[in-house]
């Protein structure tokens, strides 16, 4: 049982016109096996939260803490965070020329485990995971994200989630740009990882659509860099009916 704890997190980015505050004091606690949905309108700071947890250099942490079982996540490098068990499924994964999916997955697995996976078992595992996500076998020989469709990129992110077995995953708008079939396949992958490894999930989304397939235990509504309201799954249903307007009016 692990806990990811975010306390009074304040984050800004540097812009041409100076420092721009994005997160203005965020509190969130996620335990193993829990699924938390973070919802909110565009520009409310959802993705900033995701990238700050992962340690992207663009985001300045001006205050607050992120701890993983008491350890200071903010003091860790990007790769150290991954090695303690944090994972970010990105909204816009970058293309990496000349690095094949198979080489990338093996290198990442080796880095996380501290030793190379046994070749035969690993190859079989990769192949089965790809099959579960309806990915063609030739995928492994392609360069990372190069020429992938939007849906293929998202499947590739979830493939990594299943193979790398993190303790906590942040899914940054994994549902965006997916058609219904792809959304189902990707959601099944997330649910498999959740059931088999006791993964804790922070599911960031603008829409409620993905919550039909991935059932959240908690819902947090982000508005203007803060949690405006929290509740159970019923809050998501209410958002589906009412949208975010009432928060924006209050703001």
């Amino acid at each position: 049982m692990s806990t990811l704890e975010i306390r009074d997190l304040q984050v800004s980015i540097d812009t041409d016109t100076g420092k721009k505050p994005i997160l203005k004091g965020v509190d969130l606690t996620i335990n193993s096996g829990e699924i938390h949905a973070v919802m909110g309108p565009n520009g409310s700071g959802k993705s900033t939260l995701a990238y700050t947890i992962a340690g992207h250099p663009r985001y300045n942490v001006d205050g607050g803490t992120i701890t993983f079982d008491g350890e200071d996540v903010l003091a860790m490098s990007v790769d150290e965070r991954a090695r303690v068990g944090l994972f970010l499924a990105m909204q816009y994964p970058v293309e990496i020329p000349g690095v094949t999916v198979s080489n990338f997955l093996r290198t990442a697995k080796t880095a996380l485990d501290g030793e190379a996976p046994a070749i035969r078992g690993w190859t079989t595992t990769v192949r089965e995971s790809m099959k579960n996500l309806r990915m063609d076998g030739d995928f492994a020989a392609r360069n990372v994200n190069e020429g992938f469709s939007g849906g293929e990129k998202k499947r590739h992110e979830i493939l990594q989630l299943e193979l790398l077995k993190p303790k906590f995953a942040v899914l940054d708008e994994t549902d965006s740009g997916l058609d219904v079939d792809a959304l189902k396949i990707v959601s099944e992958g997330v649910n498999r990882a959740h059931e088999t490894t006791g993964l804790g999930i922070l599911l960031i989304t603008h829409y409620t659509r993905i919550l039909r397939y991935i059932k959240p235990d908690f819902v947090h509504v982000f508005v203007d860099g803060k949690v405006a309201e929290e509740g159970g799954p019923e809050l998501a249903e209410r958002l589906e009916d009412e949208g975010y307007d009432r928060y924006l009016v209050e703001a």
Partner: protein
Amino acid sequence: MSAVPTTTTDQAVAPNQHGLAQHSHGPGTAPVQTRSERFASTDPSAFPEVTGREAEWKLSPVERLRPLIDGELDGSPYAVMYPEVEGISVEWIGRDDARIGSAGTPEDKAAANAWASFEHALHISVTGEGDVLTVTRNALDETPRAAHVLIEAAAQSSGLVVLDSQGAAQLSENVEIIVGDDAQLTVVSLQEWNDEAIHLSSQFATVGRNAKLKHIVVSLGGGVVRVNPSTALADEGADVEALGVYFADAGQHLEQQVFVHHIAPHTVSRVTYKGALNGAGARTVWIGDVLIGRDATGTDSYEQNRNLVLSEGTRADSIPNLEIETGDIAGAGHASATGRFDDEHLFYLQSRGITEKEARRLVVLGFLVEVVQRIGEPALEARLIEALENELEGAA
């Protein structure tokens, strides 16, 4: 396409405007207006004294090249190693053989010096289908030397020829490549010389009707290595894919001047050169000239050069020139970028637990391997990837 930042660092010479490329010249002082009018001769004395200010020399370390430009060259045959391969034959032919000179004429004094000095030419003849031959030259020494290589692919043949150069050398050579109608030839010029070697290679290719040449320059070793491939697309449907990979370490000068001349209609060229520079005094030069002649309607061309700068104290020159003499083309473009690591690549890899050092290695390797992957010969690709990994090992 790589997402390397497009900030150009250390660029010495700005790219010329489309259609306005000016080049220096041979005898006389009138500037030559198009690339195809550059002075050419097999007689070194027809070229004026090299000053280092000429278009073809201005980015090269001319003083280190003097023995090859002006000196006496040993033109006798040298040891070459190659396995027996059905479908590709190798023999020495006399310098008076009628086939010599059919693909091109030297455009600089060092190439003319080599032309005037070689005694026999190495003739590599591709007549089969899908055969692969590696010719290794690893027994040269510091004696300034001239060489001539003629690679010929018969009509409708296909094959791959690797010219692998290792060890010591002070070599000026001309390589002629003749691709017959409907033939598919791949030529890899692989420079793995030792740190002191000096190598000037002018390569001239003609590509026949509906034929395809894939030409790859891989320069990893050598003190000064300058490989200048020119391709004439003189028959309809001729296609060249000109690829290059280079990795300059401290003190190394790696240069390539690439020229593609679209002469006939419906010809296609794709030029992609990628390089990495690491260490004080690492120097690379890439000049890419594409000339689309007035009869070359419906042609399609694109050239690009990308350089990844891994340390301080390096210099990469990257100069694409595009001249178009006809209004009726299918496409023409060029791109050049020299920059450092893309932080987003590193972030993505590190976010999967890969250390920064390993992530950098993967990104650099991938940046270069992306070109190697286009060769289409798995065993050779694997060997080149290993050679690149060794280069990176040294850089780390």
